[in-house]
């Protein structure tokens, strides 16, 4: 049985032109015309998810992943096409957004539960179990505005978990409450999956997609680029991400800047070797300065696919008063031992002078780290050891 099917679905967002102020719109009756700026978040997307299957959707920011979630959860309507959903669908996303701060935990269970589509009698039957799972029995008759953020989210998740949906929507891997509660949630999700619930998971965490999904789909600019086994799709995605050549420029045009980042390259010491964990890495940061600049700092930031800032290379530690002349140049960073684990890292570069950002380019490159010295954990720690007599 097919649980979810999207049939040539498109979604268009109309973007208000901010240059037309509301009062001007009123005077010129511009508001009667259609906004001119249009953004297609999804274009002619079709796919199906079978009962019990779990689908992972990957893609860059703005590829349309969250739009698919919003369409499926009916928060926003498609511009064209048709979506069919068989059974009850629930998102374990933003679980406490329906809470009202003035109401007690118990009242909020009823409010949020009915927003999720439960009837009052259904909630009455489950309320003890909801309170138990959230672990906040002492505070259940206190207004939720006095809750800690962890209790807030735990209660929200607990309500959503009791919805007993046929189809689960998950956005990113849950970062809910403390570690013990996170483990409880992940355990619940894997049990739900085992018991045959259909799942759609949207994540930047490629490892989670590979681990949790039977099937993966790659989105690019609102279209399905590829669909298949998680391993194949992730490999294809990484290949595309590697070939990113056009950086995203932030800020004004190059002519208005005092200096700009020009290029970035990562190599190992031997030019025929790839960059590997535990081995040396060289980063070359090309720049062009239009003025003589004082107190210059060059930064390279590395992010995990989830967006977590993982490491930084900077010139500020050894020389905070760097002075550069007009013209182009290259900063070479030499890491004797690359400590990050194999995988794909997104890279930002930035130039600062006198503590002010002069040029910054986000996501301008990708660092692919290949397996080298293999250890468990998040980092490779360079060590020497000896046997004591």
């Amino acid at each position, binding site marked *: 049985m097919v649980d979810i099917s999207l049939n040539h679905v498109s979604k268009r*967002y109309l973007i208000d032109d901010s240059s037309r102020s509301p009062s001007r719109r009123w005077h010129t009756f511009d508001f009667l015309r259609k906004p001119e700026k249009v953004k297609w978040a999804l274009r002619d997307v079709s796919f199906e998810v079978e009962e019990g299957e779990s689908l992972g959707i990957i893609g860059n920011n703005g590829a349309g992943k969250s739009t698919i979630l919003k369409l499926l959860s009916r928060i926003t309507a498609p511009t064209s096409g*048709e979506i069919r*959903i068989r059974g009850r669908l629930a998102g374990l996303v933003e679980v406490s957004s329906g809470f009202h701060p003035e109401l007690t935990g118990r009242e909020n269970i009823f409010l949020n539960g009915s*927003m999720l589509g439960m009837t009052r009698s259904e909630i009455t039957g489950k309320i003890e179990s909801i309170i138990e799972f959230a672990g906040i029995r002492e505070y259940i008759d206190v207004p939720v505005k006095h809750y800690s953020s962890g209790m807030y989210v735990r209660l929200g998740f607990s309500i959503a978990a009791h919805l007993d949906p046929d189809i689960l929507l998950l956005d990113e891997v849950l970062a809910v409450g403390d570690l013990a509660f996170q483990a409880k949630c992940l355990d*619940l999700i894997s049990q739900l999956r085992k018991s045959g619930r259909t799942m759609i998971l949207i994540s930047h965490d490629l490892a989670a997609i590979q681990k949790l999904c039977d099937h993966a789909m790659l989105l690019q600019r609102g279209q399905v680029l590829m669909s298949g086994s998680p391993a194949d799709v992730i490999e294809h995605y990484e290949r595309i991400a590697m070939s990113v050549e056009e950086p995203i420029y932030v800020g004004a045009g190059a002519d208005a800047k005092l200096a700009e980042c020009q290029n970035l390259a990562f190599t190992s010491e031997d030019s025929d070797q790839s960059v590997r964990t535990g081995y040396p890495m060289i980063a070359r940061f090309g720049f062009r300065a239009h003025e003589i600049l004082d107190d210059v700092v060059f930064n390279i930031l590395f992010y995990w696919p989830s967006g977590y800032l993982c490491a930084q290379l900077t010139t500020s530690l050894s020389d905070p008063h760097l002075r550069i002349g007009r013209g182009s140049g290259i900063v070479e960073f030499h890491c004797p031992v690359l400590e990050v684990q194999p995988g794909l890292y997104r890279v930002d570069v930035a130039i600062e002078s006198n503590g002010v950002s002069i040029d910054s380019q986000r996501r301008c490159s990708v660092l692919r780290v290949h397996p080298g010295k293999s250890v468990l954990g998040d980092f490779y720690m360079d060590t020497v050891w000896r046997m004591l007599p």
Partner: protein
Amino acid sequence: MKQSIVPDSRREHPILGSRLALPRKITVIRPPGFSFGMIVAGLITLFGYQDLLYTLTIFRISIRYKQSILGWIWAVLQPLALMTIYTLIFFRVARVPSEGAPYPLFVFSGLLPWIFFSSAVSNSINGLINYPALLTKMYFPREIIPLSYVLAALVDFAIACVILSGLMAYYRVPPNWNDLYLFPIVTILGAFTSAVALFLSSIQVRFRDVGVALPLLLQVGMFAAPVVYSTTSVPLKFRQLFLLNPVASLIDSFRRVLLHGLTPDFAILFTAGLVTLCCLAVSYGYFKATEGNMADML
């Protein structure tokens, strides 16, 4: 949106244990549009969410009074204060005729339906934009938000009616079997109020001008209805047009039944019902057609 039922079997849930699986409904989502089908489908979905409407109405009322000392008294203080002011201005100073009834009672019986209408409309139009997180993160039929404000205002109206009956006892206006006609009158008024609330709150999401203009419109609206004066003061040649406004004709019927113990003028009541039905259908259809893109505009 169509729904049909497909059978299913038992299944496991980690917390709730093994249970009989509920039959699965098929939901079809299509681009929104203004059509009869959308209205019917919307009403069916709304029926499924009746518990939310109930819960939300209760909470609207309890939140409103939770942090105020006077609590429920506010529901009657406003009409009583206005009654005093209007009695001073329109009876003592301007000598407005009041169909032979004591003026305080006359104006109070007009104020209650009017305050119900105006507070329901002015509370509900901001309902959708006050909590954007609800609209951008969760799905439920959006009309429940404005409708819950209308129902909460109806509860305030009921409380104020207790004071009204006290006032009637004080002026020795006896209760009458014709008072049962109040139920259809209030029902039509509630339906018309919902129509206005739905329409305006849906426009408010797109153009916030509605919220700015509303206090003025309601001020004008009050004098377009027989609240402080009697319908008999309206010149005969304008009276038909005047009573085409359901709020005006319903306030008039309300007073006629309550103060004079008469049956309502059925032709007028029927017209009000018909106008209300048309307004409600158009306004609900419009609301449903714009509902799908509301989250994009916040």
